[in-house]
């Protein structure tokens, strides 16, 4: 026999996501506000699935120019060399800077790809009402929420290098359009993770019992 759980949604309670106060919803009226902090209360984040889908798909599209266009161009003695995310990692490997290459590979390539794939998987699993391993899927969600920020390393490196390497004819560094697209991917996937509601993962289990 499966264990039956009570959920706030079932029992007519609403949890405030700002101040964590639990309130009893009178009927199923919309626009109830939290009595403590005034935040509008929702049983689930509004339009969570469509919002997260839209943001995730936008991030996929932006991911293409982020990788094809140069993120910065190093000009030394008049010779310019554009670098994409991947060629930047390759150069570090060729230069023997293995730990740094691994770090940038992880932050700029692994993290964004993994984040997009996990979000897609979570969205599909909710869409198809999967009841498989909800706890592990919730953990996956928490990972996407916390790890995304580390992708910003490359953007920060560019910001530091452009201001420091301004040596006129000797050497200059200029940012590239790829960096704009990549920054967009990082920000949009962060918004996507925020708009996803992990409680949707567990809702599929509820419907099983009815």
């Amino acid at each position: 026999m499966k264990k039956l759980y009570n959920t706030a949604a079932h029992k007519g309670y609403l949890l405030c996501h700002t101040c964590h106060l639990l309130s009893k919803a009178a009927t199923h009226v919309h626009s109830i506000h939290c009595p403590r902090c005034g935040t509008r209360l929702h049983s689930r984040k509004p339009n969570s699935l469509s919002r997260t889908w839209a943001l995730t798909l936008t991030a996929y599209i932006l991911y293409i120019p982020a990788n094809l266009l140069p993120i910065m161009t190093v000009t030394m003695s008049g010779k310019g060399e554009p670098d994409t995310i991947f060629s930047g990692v390759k150069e570090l490997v060729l230069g023997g800077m293995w730990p740094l290459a691994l770090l940038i590979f992880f932050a700029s390539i692994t993290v964004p790809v993994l984040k997009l794939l996990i979000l897609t998987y979570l969205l599909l699993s909710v869409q198809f009402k999967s009841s498989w391993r909800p706890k592990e899927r919730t953990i996956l969600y928490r990972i996407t929420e916390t790890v995304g920020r580390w992708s910003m390393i490359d953007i920060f490196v560019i910001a530091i290098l452009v201001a420091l390497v301004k040596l006129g004819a000797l050497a200059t560094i200029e940012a590239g359009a790829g960096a704009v697209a990549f920054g967009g991917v990082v920000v949009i996937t962060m918004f996507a993770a925020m708009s996803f509601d992990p409680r949707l993962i567990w809702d599929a289990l509820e419907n099983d019992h009815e």
Partner: protein
Amino acid sequence: MSQMIKAQAESRTHLTACHDCDLLFHIPHLKKGEQAHCPRCGALVMERKGNSLDYSLALALTSLILFVMANFNVLLRMNVGGRTQEENIISGVNELFVQGYWEIAVLVFIVSILAPLLKILCLFYVLIPLRLNTRFPYAKEVFSFYETLSPWSMTEVYMLGILVALVKLADLATINVGIALYSFAALIPFMAATDASLDDHEIWESLEPTD
């Protein structure tokens, strides 16, 4: 007998819902340093930290001083063939603007300068009046904004960016690190400790109107 103990225990619990899986369950009254986890998904639902406001305020003040030092001093200094180039945190933002990449300039400005600064200032706005047993107008909105800012304050990631830039430039030129870099490095543990010292449940309870 056991019935009575159970009834007593029951009255000292309160109903809550898990923010990750929506499970409705009772949590006991937590003592200082205790945590409550969701029995279904394992999410941390509540933590009683029991730190004094003075402790959090001292950490926030130290963070503010370090933030000012990190932003008004030289971060890195590069020497190449008799030429010296200095930079501080804002000059990266400025240069990105000059090059026409305002989108990245704005992004870097927000996550490395604006969000950390606003976070510290929001805390002062909420905590100082609480310490004096009063409340400033819009304290709840300000505290809610503080929590919204958290994912956008990326000082520790920026620090790693500085280190990567240092290694990349190492064989190109001689780089000296400035006071700002040390201040920035010290700011990170202090900001983390400030965040960790706060008991958001307790703060929300004290912000509740008493009348």
